[in-house]
């Protein structure tokens, strides 16, 4: 069944096989297998988890191994180099052949992707120059030159490196900037490819501007640079159909850095031929207290929402676990889900943990949400294999809402590197944990109740009086 392309004798440690018939000019979903030396194989379409400071948020390495099927992790160099301005960042002193794994205690079976910036990245106040970009570390903005990024890659040798790209995160580039983006990126990629060692796999960045504006760069990739690159990293998935239709470029694995906001957008990218995703909404949902519940292509039949729902009603993509309605519910987060959280715990516990601001709430939700997305991709691969993908996408679109439910949970404390301040007068991102004693909204006379014991007795302990 597999007609692996003739790339097995390549010198690099990374191989990508595409299954089924392969036509470089067609825009279709595709099945593949990414093999990286020393790591677990990854069937595609699939996803890489997004890390923060080198960890998948809320999951310790033992939990990743025991309770998830995450195949790879996206890491951002800016999470490790806050000390670069005054000395050598500690990760550069880390021993071992794979410093990224060693430094972050990441299970060895997982693939590492190193990008200069987090995804999503905080927009920088200062633009990029011809030789460097602005990055945001935990201690503030810094300039990262291509030269030093190349030396970071040489030392850290991630399984996949994404070169520096001139991407204006968060702002729309002006007409003068657009041509520069292509030129700079082309130069930076070329510099990296010329100086890297043969073993290092590089996924060339595709810029979030129209293909004409980066025409020269894309042709260069398809032509002179093609031998040096092992994959493509898309900052905008809409560029996929516009890529030069050469075999050498089309057979490369494609990584999406496009920040899809919903499963529907993932499906659309799959239909364009995207292979690997990074999905910020998994973490957003977790920290908002939302348990993802969607399944591809259709919900399980005994899903209560399906049973209760009026025929033709549309299901939400997730459930807000903070809702008081779960207080005594012993049901799993999602019907028939086989994840650790759903098989070991129940909604009542997750609801309690969220309302008590306990960190375990995010751990349990992150395990569940990662599992739901893993299953989503497993089903996508099955449907593509069966040839029913297109019809299944339509069915999914009819069954589920298009976007995730609104955020309601407070989430963990937000750190500086998570957002960019909008200037003076901005409201506080984190709620104060403590206030003044006795400063209640209703305004009460004393600090200690003076009602007779009998009255208090009637109210019971720890029960809110009806007001």
């Amino acid at each position, binding site marked *: 069944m597999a007609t692996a392309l003739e790339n097995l004798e390549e010198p690099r440690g990374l191989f990508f096989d595409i299954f089924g018939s392969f036509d470089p000019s067609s825009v279709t979903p595709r099945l593949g297998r990414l093999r990286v030396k020393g790591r677990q194989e990854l069937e595609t379409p699939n996803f890489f988890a997004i890390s*923060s*400071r080198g*960890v*998948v*948020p*809320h*999951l*310790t*390495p*033992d*939990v990743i191994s025991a309770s998830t099927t995450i195949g790879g992790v996206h890491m951002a160099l800016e999470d*490790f180099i806050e*000390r670069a301005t005054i000395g050598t960042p*500690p*990760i550069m*002193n*880390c*021993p071992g052949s794979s410093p990224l794994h*060693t*430094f*972050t*205690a990441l299970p060895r079976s997982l693939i590492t992707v190193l990008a200069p910036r987090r995804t999503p990245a905080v927009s920088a106040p200062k633009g990029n120059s011809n030789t460097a970009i602005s990055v945001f570390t*935990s201690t503030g903005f810094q300039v990262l030159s291509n030269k030093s990024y190349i030396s970071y890659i040489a030392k850290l040798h991630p399984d996949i490196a994404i070169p520096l790209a001139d991407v204006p995160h968060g702002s729309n580039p002006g007409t003068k900037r657009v041509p520069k983006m292509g030129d700079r990126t082309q130069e930076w990629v070329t510099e990296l490819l010329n100086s890297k060692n043969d073993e290092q796999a590089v996924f060339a960045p595709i810029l979030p501007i129209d293909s004409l504006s980066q025409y020269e760069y894309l042709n260069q990739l398809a032509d002179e640079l093609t031998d040096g690159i092992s994959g493509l990293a898309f900052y905008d998935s809409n560029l996929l159909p516009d890529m030069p239709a050469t075999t050498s470029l089309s057979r490369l694995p494609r990584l999406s850095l496009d920040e899809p906001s919903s499963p529907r957008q993932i499906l659309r990218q799959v239909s364009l031929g995207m292979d690997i995703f990074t999905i910020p909404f998994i973490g957003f949902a977790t920290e908002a207290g939302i348990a993802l519940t969607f399944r591809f292509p259709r919900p399980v039949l005994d899903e209560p929402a399906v049973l209760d729902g009026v025929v033709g009603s549309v299901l939400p993509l997730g459930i807000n676990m903070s809702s008081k309605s779960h*207080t*005594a519910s*012993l049901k799993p987060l999602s019907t028939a889900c086989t994840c650790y959280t759903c098989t*070991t*715990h129940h909604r*009542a*516990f997750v609801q*309690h*943990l969220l*309302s*008590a601001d*306990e*960190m*375990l709430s995010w*751990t*349990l939700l992150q395990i569940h949400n990662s599992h739901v997305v893993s299953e989503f991709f497993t089903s996508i691969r099955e449907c593509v294999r069966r040839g029913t993908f297109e019809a299944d996408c339509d069915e999914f679109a009819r069954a589920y809402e298009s976007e995730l439910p609104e955020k309601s949970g407070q989430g*963990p404390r937000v*750190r500086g590197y998570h957002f960019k301040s909008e200037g003076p007068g901005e409201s506080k991102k984190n709620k104060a944990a403590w206030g003044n*004693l*006795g400063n*209640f*909204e*209703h305004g009460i006379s004393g*600090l*200690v*109740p003076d*009602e007779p*014991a009998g009255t*208090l*007795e009637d*109210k*019971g*302990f*720890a*029960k*809110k*009086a009806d007001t």
Partner: protein
Amino acid sequence: MAAAKPMPSALDFELEARCSTTKARAAILTLPHGPVQLPLFMPVATQASLKGLTPEQLEATGCRLCLNNTYHLGLKPGQEALEAVGGAHKLQGWKHNILTDSGGFQMVSLLKLANITEEGVRFLSPHDGTPMLLTPEHSIALQNTIGSDIIMQLDDVLVTTSPDTKRMREAMERSVRWLDRCISAHKNPTTQNLFCIIQGGLDLEMREECCREMVARDTPGIAIGGLSGGEAKADYCRVVNTCTGLLPELKPRYVMGIGYPEDLVVSVALGADMFDCVWPTRTARFGDAITKHGVLKLRNASYRNDFGPVEEGCGCLCCRQGKGSLGVTRAFVHHLAAKETVGAHLLTIHNVWYQLALMKSVRESIIEDRFPAFLKHFFSDLHGGDKAKYPDWAVEALRTVGVDLML
């Protein structure tokens, strides 16, 4: 006013060994959710979760008995939800034992402005200012619903350093009266063990009197309360020593709120068996690692390039070498400390493991009757062999039970 009927018990206490020098003991305490080995440290899962660890991760540290706080569970998720779910074990997916406090201590530690009267503790809800009253009956009813294996009586807690002897006596006597109310309110004496709490501040005579009154009530276990509130360590040791001298040998003795390693080993030498404290887990969240050579503040810049394990030779998931090791380094914890929750989780695993492993080695040394030698090693490791650094209170307290650290 001594108690009348003998109290049923849901535990089995088997004394295994006694130190031939000190008052230390090793025992097996069998509770409704399985046996635990004494002496024992119990980590605190305040709100039905041990600060980010899954129940399986907590189990892997060796923990078989952890604490929940009645006060917190009473507010969230509340008695109604607990009842509907079927108790705290079911709520948190914990197969092993749980001990709950009475809720009284939080009244004093969290709510400086609580008013204690004969009926109970009056306070305003910290959430919305609703006036509330916690009585011994409420406390026991809540703990019955929680279904913990060990439940604590509601006591009248007063800081031990209070100079008001009259109030101290009142608190002690009230605690005895409240114990009687707790005993009669306790609905599940055959499945949950009620422990009394000895009060009386730093006044040894008052402590003795309280011991006599409470021992007469024959609860399955006995706690020494009101300590770890800022009193001098020497005073603390005198109280523990006095109380253990008056307590029946075949019952577990629990000193509440104790968790620094040196406090634990000295208290064991003074005859105590069980301890709890939030310090190991709280300090983990600040990036502090407990080791046999003292606490390492891993947020300190000196650790940023330290690629060794958190503690050399430690057997915890983070530090152990070889198969199944995570390979967590001090540099990595430094990188995460106070920034990512994973950093807190990893150090919590280490710190809980340290505390439990410490008590395990204490226990082994008692069984092999080499506890005095263990104590000498312990203090030598902790202070780099410099006897001048040994705390006076510990030296003094251990002398009273026949161990001289200075020799």
